[in-house]
């Protein structure tokens, strides 16, 4: 990777960055509402986003910049196993179609802004509400840090060193998120997604043409894995199949428990908007599958890098003129801004509604909520920034992995309550605690690998620890519900307003 500054790339990059900055500040006036007077306006863009805006927004914040860097990097390093992102982002949509419209209806009817609001509405339990809110905030922080890492990779590729460029980019992001709220990333998502589509479609046509077709790309990758050995290859090893499937399923169930994806759901205009998006959003998954193949193209192009994360920038610099590489890098960096903004808004909404309003100032006005959330979004961003400035990068990656397993433990509290009131808040809280405790401990004792091993009747099964923790979570919640039901059959408050 070049160490001098790549002026052409950098100029293109700065042009697009300036463009989205102007758009970010201008967004406050887009589909204008009183942004500072109500949290629905700042934090949910006025709950008015139709099918296309939601498509761009959710596509923009679910398929993050880090994905564009990390998925090809993993595929480059290990092969087929890295493709679990593909089944994951397919099966998530039948789930979204079945569950999320129900969640939207409940949130819409009761003015809920966050997952924890919905949980509190269904169970009237401040403790469960706080558990869901804190899990959401804690899981989001390293996710934002990851976006910064993704942005850092392309900035480094352009020859800029030091942390100043990232800090500057982040201050700009923080300011327009502060002033425009969710409207800013929603508007920028249009630019980001169109740029990413152009980059990837050009890459998947031009790169194989330069390298001798897809047959040659797969053959080159196969040679590289044969030479490398170990648990790599174009196909899964038998021992990788169960981890592959459970990672896909667990990730799919966790994906729409995160504050940033749920913010996209709550901001939709109608339940039908969400259903149509479940049909249309897989277009991004096709894109993701093609992005993943960049990892194999790098083998065919004989790209050698120090860390796999540099594979995508190195590939673009090797095969494209510098203006197009600059365009691709802008797409990736802007692709980091959209999710980072939505994540900080989602976390800020949780803090405002479920910590500040619940514990500090229950009589807060609508304008007061918006003011608290705006400040909270700044704090969240500074937290994520200090994460990558002061801690080793690996910490952010490890915590993001744990974050996925934590957020998955909010699934029973959030989803089951939409369909049945059978579970008791006490049981769900205990299940959540046991799931997080066992999952974290297992991941930790495996050297922060997301896999757990279970020995049953002589055979040993390796699976995604988050999914195991979820099953344990549900079992504990069910047993505890039965016990609590025997001790106190009277459901205090459970029939109150929801």
């Amino acid at each position: 990777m070049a160490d001098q500054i790549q002026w052409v790339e950098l100029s293109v990059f700065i042009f697009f960055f300036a463009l989205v900055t102007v758009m970010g500040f201008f967004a406050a006036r887009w589909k204008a509402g009183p942004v500072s007077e109500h949290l629905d306006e700042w934090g949910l863009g006025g709950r008015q986003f139709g099918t296309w805006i939601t498509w761009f927004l959710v596509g923009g914040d679910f398929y993050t910049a880090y994905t564009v860097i990390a998925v090809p990097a993993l595929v480059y390093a290990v092969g087929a196993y890295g493709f679990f992102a593909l089944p994951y982002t397919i099966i998530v949509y039948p789930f979204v179609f079945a569950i999320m419209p129900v969640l939207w209806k409940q949130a819409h009817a009761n003015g809920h802004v966050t997952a924890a609001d919905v949980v509190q509405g269904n169970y009237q339990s401040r403790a469960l509400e706080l558990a869901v809110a804190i899990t959401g905030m804690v899981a989001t922080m390293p996710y934002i840090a990851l976006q910064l890492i993704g942005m850092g990779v392309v900035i480094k590729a352009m020859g800029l060193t030091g942390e100043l460029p990232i800090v500057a980019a982040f201050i700009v992001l923080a300011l327009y998120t502060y002033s425009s709220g969710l409207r800013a990333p929603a508007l920028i998502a249009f630019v980001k997604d169109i740029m990413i589509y152009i980059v990837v479609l050009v890459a998947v046509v031009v790169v194989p043409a330069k390298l001798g077709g897809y047959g040659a790309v797969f053959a080159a990758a196969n040679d590289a894995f044969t030479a490398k050995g170990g648990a790599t290859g174009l196909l899964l090893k038998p021992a990788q199949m169960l981890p592959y499937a459970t990672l896909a399923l667990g990730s799919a169930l966790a994906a729409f428990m995160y504050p940033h994806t749920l913010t996209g759901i709550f901001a939709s205009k109608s339940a039908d908007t969400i259903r149509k998006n479940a049909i249309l959003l897989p277009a991004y998954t096709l894109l993701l599958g093609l992005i993943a193949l960049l990892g194999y193209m790098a083998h065919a192009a004989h790209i050698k890098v120090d860390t796999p994360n540099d594979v995508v920038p190195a590939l673009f610099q090797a095969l494209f003129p510098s203006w197009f590489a600059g365009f691709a890098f802008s797409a990736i960096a802007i692709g980091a801004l959209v999710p980072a903004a939505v994540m900080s808004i989602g976390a800020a909404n949780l803090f405002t509604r479920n910590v500040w309003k619940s514990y500090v100032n229950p009589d807060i006005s609508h304008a007061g909520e918006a003011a608290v959330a705006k400040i909270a979004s700044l704090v969240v961003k500074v937290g994520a920034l200090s994460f990558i400035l002061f801690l080793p990068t690996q910490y952010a990656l490890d915590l993001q992995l744990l974050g996925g397993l934590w957020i998955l433990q909010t699934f029973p509290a959030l989803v089951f309550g939409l369909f049945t009131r059978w579970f008791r808040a006490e049981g769900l809280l205990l299940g959540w605690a046991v799931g997080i405790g066992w999952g974290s401990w297992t991941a930790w004792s495996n050297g922060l690998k997301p896999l757990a091993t279970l020995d049953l009747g002589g055979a040993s099964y390796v699976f995604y620890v988050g999914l195991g923790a979820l099953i344990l979570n549900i079992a504990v919640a069910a047993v505890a519900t039965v016990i609590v039901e025997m001790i106190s059959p009277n459901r205090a408050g459970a029939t109150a307003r929801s």
Partner: protein
Amino acid sequence: MWILLLVPFVGLLWVPFYNFAEPSLFGFPFFYWYQLAWVPISSLLIWLVYRSRTPDETP
């Protein structure tokens, strides 16, 4: 019709069913084009369920 929503789960989570190189298509080993093919298939299945359900504005 809602049962159609479970089909992608079966098709994609039962990995031994598609962990093969052959038959390949346009240079893509089976493992890859099979999973990519599930993207439009899943969209289609969800659309079929969407079409069949009664519109919800009457709760």
